[in-house]
């Protein structure tokens, strides 16, 4: 039997050679835990992320937009499913993940604790929130844990489609009536900073980054991804003829990147700690659905058992 130290060396060697880690492979406990935490958090984000957009399905302003929005929210449910499955390969049960979400033990992306106040928010979420998520997910297509990497490949395809739809939604508003233009700018103003916060604390504050990069769970730091996002958004907002709500945004010739203003980290940590505008509302909605669905799940189990019993009887 191999010594722990050899197992760890062999594991790191695989990582270094860009060989994916698969469910049955040996892995350090911390690697397993970090992946479970990250994958389940990603799954929860997809599932909670259905709520702010679902909020506008009944009020979508055209049949086409309504169909697109329904499809998008459904895709998010699908992503949640792939991701829960990926986490299950690490020995975490779906029930446990659900419980941890509802109890507040597990986190999800804080962005979904902001309210969707106008139709333009559907565009801004697609453009900025999905846009930020994609940068992360593109990186995660190459994450070292195989099932998670493959889940991200599937997710990325759909997400970039969503992002384009979001941008196009804003595009139409930006060319619309004065009210629509104002709605568009207002949504960008409200979602810009929370989108920047999606990449997490600055590298100097981030606790898990070092090992995550050594194990190739992540390949870029929070700040690298955030900068990439800012550089991209600055170009795109020009196409919309709108502005980003940051007076400090400026091209830095030396860095060859855009400088941007200070993020309100107090707000960030408040939302993480549960004090965002919608934390309670989001979890309450999920708790309600879970509680009101209990009898349905119980009935499904009871019926399956009855059916199985009948089949056994017939066979016997």
């Amino acid at each position, binding site marked *: 039997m191999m010594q722990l130290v050899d197992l760890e060396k062999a594991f790191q060697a695989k990582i270094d050679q860009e060989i994916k880690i698969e469910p049955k492979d040996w892995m350090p406990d911390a690697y397993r835990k970090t992946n479970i935490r990250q994958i389940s958090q990603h799954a929860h984000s997809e599932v909670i992320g259905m709520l702010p957009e679902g909020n506008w399905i009944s009020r979508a302003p055209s049949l086409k937009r309504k169909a697109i929005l*329904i499809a998008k929210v459904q895709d998010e*449910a699908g992503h949640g499913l792939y991701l829960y499955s990926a986490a299950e390969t690490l020995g975490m049960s779906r029930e446990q993940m659900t419980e941890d979400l509802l109890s507040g033990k597990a986190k999800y992306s804080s962005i979904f604790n902001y309210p969707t106040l106008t139709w333009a928010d559907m565009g801004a979420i697609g453009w900025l929130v999905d846009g930020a998520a994609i940068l992360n997910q593109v990186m995660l297509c190459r994450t070292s844990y195989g099932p998670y990497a493959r889940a991200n490949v599937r997710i990325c395809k759909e997400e970039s489609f969503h992002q384009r739809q979001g941008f196009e939604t804003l595009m139409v508003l930006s060319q619309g009536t004065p009210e629509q233009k104002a709605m568009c700018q207002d949504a960008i103003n409200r979602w810009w900073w929370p989108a920047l916060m999606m990449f997490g604390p600055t590298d100097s504050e981030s606790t898990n980054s070092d090992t995550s990069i050594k194990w190739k769970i992540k390949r870029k730091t929070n700040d690298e991804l955030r900068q990439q996002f800012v550089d991209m958004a600055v170009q795109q907002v020009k196409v919309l003829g709108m502005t980003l709500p940051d007076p400090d945004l400026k091209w830095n010739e030396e860095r060859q990147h855009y400088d941007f203003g200070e993020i309100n980290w107090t707000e960030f940590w408040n939302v993480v700690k549960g004090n965002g505008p919608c934390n309670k509302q989001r979890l309450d909605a999920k708790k309600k659905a879970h509680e009101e669905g209990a009898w349905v799940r119980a009935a499904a189990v009871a019926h399956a058992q009855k059916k199985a019993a009948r089949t056994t009887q017939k066979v016997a």
Partner: protein
Amino acid sequence: MEQSNNDHTALVDYVLHLADNNLILTQRNAAWCGHGPILEQDIAITNITLDLIGQARNFYQYAATLIGGDATEDSLAYLRNERSFKNCLLVEQPNGDWAQTVTKQFFYSVYQFLLYEQLQKSSDETLAAIAAKSLKEVTYHVTWSSDWVIRLGDGTTESQQRMQQAIDNLWNYTGELFEPAAYENSLHQQQIAPAIATLQPAWLQKVKEVFAEATLTIPENSFVQTGGKNGLHTEQLGYILTELQYLQRTYPGANW
């Protein structure tokens, strides 16, 4: 010429009736999105909803072509009032619990399946094409909803009671599906649509089969509530339309 005008009006009304049925049920079902009892079923009902709105759009687009002028799928969905909507009362009834939602879907999908089976043979090529294309979708809706009726009916004591309650709440709205409005009669005479009443026996047969397996019973009070097909709705519809139409009403003439 007048006959032909009447025929044309009847066709428009009929197509709107088909479209409205689907749109209003879309509006109801979509409320589950993100709030379902099981994530997989959240996806399933949303899939069905996507089929429903897709079909609705086909019908509205066709109606817009028939009407001509400025009519669009959106003007028809967003700018008609509560007395102009021609959906059956069934589809506007509240979601209630999961039992009521699957029961409503089951009643409607079985009806829709039988209707589209006939409609694909319609002399109106557009309707025939939409029906033919949608039939595969509806076949799945019937299977899915039947499975749930059986699962809940033959599940726990609580689920059985909830199912029976759901059936009692909705049963009186099922008869309207088969009571022809004037435009349905007209379309039948034009050989565009089936005689809707003739589909009732097959519908009842299917319902009885599924209910038998689900250990559920058909209510005794079979008084038929009607009106929806002719724009006389329950108080439910007004609230559905306030949400559905709010943005179009608030920003008239805007593109989205």
